[in-house]
């Protein structure tokens, strides 16, 4: 016995530790589950952390209404299989109730509106800890965020006033009305996620693997043809063999040309890729260099 753990086992152990710590110290945690690969890994880790019991918290989907059908089906099947309670927080409802105002124009997206819906749901349901699947390698602003990310009564993140985080000691203390965003996968990279999905044989929505789909080209990205986007002049839909590297709002999540239809092929592609996940596929991050920093301060995921 050499008493060594692989990097995936080390990352998993750290994530399990964080997940258990939250379950032990918070009254009403909830895990954000979109059907995206990171949230699938986070949920998988949570089921392992409490085995043979179920995770002692519900999962929540902030639903923009602009979904890929396959992902919603996958979400419901997963929640059923694990016997968990699903809370759906609907952006459409926030719009209908006048809490959020729909963007207009051909590039309209409901991405930013999710913050309103998310914060309202946290307040209504009195969640005090919200697990998110964000990773520090995704983006500059995330690289400096804590595992336990404190949010004030407005759900805001203050990058200059974060709690020091040392050893494996996490400080979850907060006043009523404040909450903690918790990121158990902080130290994972995109490649780690894929390698772990393979190691653990974690099911994912089929759109992560290569499939033929009607797409069009916009701003150097391939966007899916869906009822939620209006084609601009000169934008011609065509069929292409694609897969998605991230799964978000269907109106702003880009696909990449790919023939990777197995987990092995996806890992090879990920290891060889030369463009970041968000750079390749997220229109929302292209708005400005500080796009994520601004949205996070407002209370985004």
């Amino acid at each position: 016995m050499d008493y060594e753990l692989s990097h995936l086992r080390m990352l998993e152990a750290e994530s399990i530790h964080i997940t258990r710590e939250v379950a032990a110290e918070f009254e009403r945690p909830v895990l954000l589950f979109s059907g995206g690969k990171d949230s699938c890994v986070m949920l998988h880790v949570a089921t392992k952390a409490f085995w043979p019991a179920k995770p002692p918290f519900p999962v929540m989907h902030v639903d923009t209404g602009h979904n890929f059908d396959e992902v919603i089906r996958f979400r419901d099947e997963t929640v059923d299989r694990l016997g968990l309670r699903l809370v759906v927080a609907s952006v459409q409802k926030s719009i209908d109730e006048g809490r959020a105002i729909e963007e207009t124009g051909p590039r309209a997206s409901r991405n930013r509106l999710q913050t309103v819906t998310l914060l309202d749901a946290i307040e209504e349901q009195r969640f005090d800890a919200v697990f998110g699947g964000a990773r520090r390698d995704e983006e500059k602003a995330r690289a400096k965020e804590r595992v336990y990310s404190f949010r004030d009564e407005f759900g805001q993140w203050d990058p200059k006033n974060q709690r020091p985080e040392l050893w494996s000691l996490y400080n979850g203390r907060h006043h009523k009305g404040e909450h903690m965003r918790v990121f158990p996968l902080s130290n994972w990279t995109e490649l780690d996620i894929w390698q772990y999905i393979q190691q653990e044989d974690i099911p994912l929505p089929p759109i992560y693997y290569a499939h033929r789909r009607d797409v069009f080209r916009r701003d150097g990205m391939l966007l899916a043809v869906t009822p939620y986007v209006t084609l601009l002049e000169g934008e011609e839909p065509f069929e292409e063999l694609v897969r998605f590297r991230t799964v978000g709002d269907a109106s702003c999540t880009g696909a990449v040309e790919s023939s990777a239809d197995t987990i092995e092929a996806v890992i090879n592609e990920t290891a060889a890729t030369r463009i970041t996940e968000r750079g390749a596929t997220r229109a929302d991050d292209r708005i400005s260099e500080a796009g994520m920093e601004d949205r996070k301060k407002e209370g985004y995921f």
Partner: protein
Amino acid sequence: MELLRFATAGSVDDGKSTLIGRLLYDSKSIFEDQLESIERTSRDRGDDYTNLALLTDGLRAEREQGITIDVAYRYFATPKRKFIIADTPGHIQYTRNMVTGCSTADLALVLVDARNGIVEQSRRHAFIASLLRVPHLVVCVNKMDLVDYDRGVFESIKDEFRGWATKLDVTDLSFIPISALKGDNVVHRSDVMGWYEGPSLLHYLEEVFIASDRNLIDARFPVQFVIRPMSDDHHDYRGYAGTVAGGVLKPGDEVVVLPSGFTSVIEAIETADGPVEEAFAPMAVTVRLADDIDISRGDMICRVHNQPTIGQDLDAMVCWMSDQSLLRTRDKLTIKQTTRSARALVKDLQYRLDVNTLHRDHGVASLTLNEIGRVSLRTTVPFFFDDYRRNRETGSFVLIDEASNNTVGAGMILGATQ
């Protein structure tokens, strides 16, 4: 593949950002869109070369002020290892951030500017790494290109640093002459410093032996969460979930549960992947015992003949991390150590340590932000702890302000108060 965590320290002028940028760039961990973005910014700023330091620029507030606010975590991998860098800034909040970065590091990388030699900051960084018991310390003498790759410069810095390090508790100390800007000895061995026979920095990071740094002797299992499914399939199941904090646990081991002192035998060590025959740090497992004992979060399972210190009075080196308050005698704070939390009273502030000279200032009334001192605490309930030098997990704690809930102090336990 193994995981190595390292902390970097140095100011902007030492070329730390350039070095990290170089490691990421030469190990092909930078993506095209990131590179395009910094090439564009470099051109806009009028730099003659692609400024790799821009890769580690984080928040807009930092770019505007040209400083690094906080510890940033960065990731890269080679076929041999996966690396997590805790990138700590060198400016005013240096101590707090470096203590944070070093707390989880296997290795600390300190940068010295070859032109300036060892400055106050270099000594401070080395001291903090030793205080936090980072097992390996690497001193990169940077900007060798600006001293004509002169061996004499490197050797004299090395000698002076070694002299200072004898005052510290450093177990493994290495020196590498580099030029982060030109790439000498960072990823590839330099061909202009033939006199240097050691490895490049990346080669060193890939090969340094870290497996023996862990404590495999003193079995410590802080109970984190009690698992009771209460389902039909697992009606009477009761498992103690936690992360092994030291030593090796095996089924059949005779154990004692603290604070109750009840003894039992480990019946099984379980994970969702099935039972394991041995559990060691930092594995996250679930322990089941042969006897029905009342055990809850904050209790500790350990071997009968190898127990931690149990007590309510402890001495520790504390780094104060708050800019809102001071640490003073008679203050009451919340202490969190392993999975145990309670209140603590500051009974005595014995001295403040000057991190530059290691001089002990006795008779000080308080510690302020970034200051380190020896403190005696009394806790409301017994804690189970080890000397930090023996076990970083059971020897460390944080202090939390009861009004603001902020983490205001980090402590490294020396032992029970004599």
